[in-house]
């Protein structure tokens, strides 16, 4: 019997910043509901050293959540020897799911400064359809 499946994966605190990627931007221009845009957006790049600390491997699915939202994305290892302590996501509706709406009255969200929890997950990668589903409804009659 695989008792592992009953155990909750350990959860780690993670700090995330966002960046732009030309390949993702190209995919968005073509079809923001397409598979390519999803694969290039629903991912988090983590340094080798942090991946080891958290027991993650490239292509693992991970759950990233905080009080603003929760997403399942693919874990990737950063190409360069990043010093660790900071993970990276391409700016997208997936990363925006984790951004606070509180701007301290200034109007600029903290898109590049996200605190969240990360854990190994067996769930499917969050789709754009799933992200938008709670908002699709008949608008309030005017």
């Amino acid at each position: 019997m695989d008792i592992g499946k009953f155990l909750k994966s350990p959860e780690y605190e993670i700090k995330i910043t966002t960046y732009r990627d030309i390949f993702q931007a190209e995919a968005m221009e073509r079809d923001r509901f397409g598979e390519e845009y999803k694969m290039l957006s629903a991912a988090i790049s983590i340094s080798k050293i942090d991946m080891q600390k958290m027991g993650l491997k490239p292509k693992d699915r991970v759950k990233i959540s905080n009080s603003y939202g929760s997403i399942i994305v693919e874990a990737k290892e950063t190409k360069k020897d990043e010093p660790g302590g900071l993970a990276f996501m391409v700016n997208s509706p997936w990363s925006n799911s984790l951004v606070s709406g509180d701007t301290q009255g200034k109007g600029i969200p903290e898109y590049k400064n996200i605190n969240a929890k990360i854990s190994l997950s067996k769930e499917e990668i969050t789709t754009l359809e799933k992200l938008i589903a709670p908002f699709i409804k008949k608008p309030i009659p005017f």
Partner: protein
Amino acid sequence: MATCTGCALLCDDIEAIVENNRIKETRNACRRGAARMKGCVNRLVPSIDQKPTDIESSIRKTVEIIKNARSPMLFGLDNSTCEAQAKGIRLAKKLNAVIDDTSSFCQGLLIERILQKKLRTCSLDDIRNKADVLVYWGSDAQDSQPRHLSRFSYFPRGESRQRGYEEDRKAIAIDVRESNTAKICKGHFYRIPLKGDREFILALIEALSGKVPAYDTKKMLELAGILKKAEFGAVFVGIGLTYSIKEDFDILTALAEKLPNFNIMPMVGHYNMRGFNEALFKETGFVNRVKLEPKAVHDNKYSIMESLIRKNTDAIIVVGSDPMISLPRPVLTYLASIPVICIDPCISMTSKIAAVTIPCAATCMESGGTAIRMDGKVISLSKIITSEYMPDEEIMDRLMEAI
């Protein structure tokens, strides 16, 4: 030659190969530009309450919604021509509406100071011809404005820089990660911690003032030495720097004062965001976040973010923008609960929740006009293919007439 509207570089050397009234191929464009010029796979259709209709019905429904709104908002126009922007501002005035654009949570802080002449700037052509020291700060141009280094900054053989990047130019990257641009700036990459820009600027100001900075002394003195020797320098301010120092933005002015041979260049994404900022600034003295009553009142509460958080707007016209994709999730619930009118060439996340959709022509492929490049230069956009879709300028006209 065609002009690309993929970003605010507005590359005007694009060759478009047209076959059966479609752009089949492009030459000289970057990956993003080529994809944009070839067009999206899902064109928007007119709809009301997500049911397909005709354009005239969509326009009538839009007019009904905005006439009845107590506090309407016009948002976007960064992917529209200057001509459409001017008409959009007039429309907002007629509606006593709030008007805002993506610069509100992007480069607005920086562009405002440039237009107020608080920061010294120059043209991209000056940079190509004269610049010897280039600082990419919180900016990954290789991914966001992919032809920046090849057309204007690092690689060209400019008038006074015939030996280009091999000998005449030095490129520096200051960033929290080793971006693709940082990889090109070999040996001159300064990694800073997240939100560490302010501390870095303070230390750099100290080093430029002849003091010994406590922060990474050796590297800081080395950087100050390079900057001091520059004959014509440029700091390309990316969104990474803008976000990091947003609470104390004047610190950038303090740094610029210590760098008399440098110019500040805003690294702008949307192709005509600067056009919107300039048009609104000319009209009101502010670059964004304005309520036109019709007298212009500027306040942070008129930003798209604060308008949604405070639930101050009760109907919104979104032109060429996708706030459902670009805003934080916590504000989307309210956005999706009010009537949204989405004007766009393509299906977007915002069109999926819109009460009304109005498809428009894709600028520079299906309609022409002018736009303002990131450095303030006016660039002509000419139409390449014929289209059944109305340009957004015409849609603004139609809404004005009907109101």
